[in-house]
């Protein structure tokens, strides 16, 4: 009965995961990754696993982008400093 929704969710996950790999810049990758997190949560919900979906939402929507962007910022600042010293 719920099969079409499962197919839609699976296709979305496959698409967004592929695009997350295809995008090369880390900042843009973080954006795609956060959308992938939401899509995964939808997939878990339609597969009747709301606990897992909730974990995915909790971690994927704010904490993961924050960790990634803070790391990018640190690395970039270090790069700028090195560039200035040269």
């Amino acid at each position, binding site marked *: 009965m719920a099969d079409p929704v499962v197919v839609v969710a699976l296709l979305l996950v496959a698409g967004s995961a592929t695009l997350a790999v295809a995008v090369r810049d880390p900042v843009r990758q973080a954006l795609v990754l956060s959308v992938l997190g939401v899509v995964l949560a939808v997939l878990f919900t339609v597969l009747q696993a709301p*606990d897992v979906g*909730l*974990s995915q939402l909790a971690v994927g929507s*704010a*904490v993961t982008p924050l960790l990634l962007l*803070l790391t990018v910022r640190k690395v970039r*600042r270090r790069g700028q*400093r090195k560039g200035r010293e040269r």
Partner: protein
Amino acid sequence: MNRRFRLWLVAVGSAGLAALLVAACLELPDFGGAWHPYGDRAVRASLDRHTANTVASVNFDQRAFDTLGEMTILFAAVLGCVVLLRQTRDEHRARPEPADVEPPVRRYALIVLPVALLTGLYVIAHGQLSPGGGFQGGVVAATALHLLYLGADYRALERIRPVGLYEVGDAAAACAYLVLGLAGVLAGTAFLANTLLPYGTFNTLSSGGTVPLLNAAIGMEVACAVVVLLARFLDQAVEIEEESRA
């Protein structure tokens, strides 16, 4: 052991693993079928112990020992981050300048902060009744605090976040989980066995024996761990700068 031999070793090992995995997958119940041997037993056990959410019952009762392992992994990971991202001798702290945040955004952050904190506590407290639990709620609560950084500035966050206290809280919550497990041994049953407390009325907040307590311990552990982890990352990205070597 030369390179060629190592490659062969990996190939043989991987082939064996792949064969076993494929064999195991062929024996799995069909996708979307009605036959769930493990699920039926888990649901029966969780109903016996008056836990409405079977996943919580599996995590904190039937497989509570596995959760202890997962908690230890998170604890060790955060400990590793704290050690790796500490301030080294050739680094100094620079005062970050406050951001220029528009009033609506700032107001939103200050209004949503308590709401998000409450949502986190709600998810932890209702772990044994509805989807959610200590891990999910802990992450939500920890994220809520960081709205102060996003909507106001880093110094506002630092004022409500004494990292030392959260480190102590992290360790205390991990100990609480262990102590609850050992209490079972002292009471004459087994480590982490759910026999200490009455199971209570089905589908109420206090049902499920030790499940809500273990849930709360995990909630506190995860919330503190995420706060400490983000504190280290924020320190590195915002405050700590390398000394330029003269």
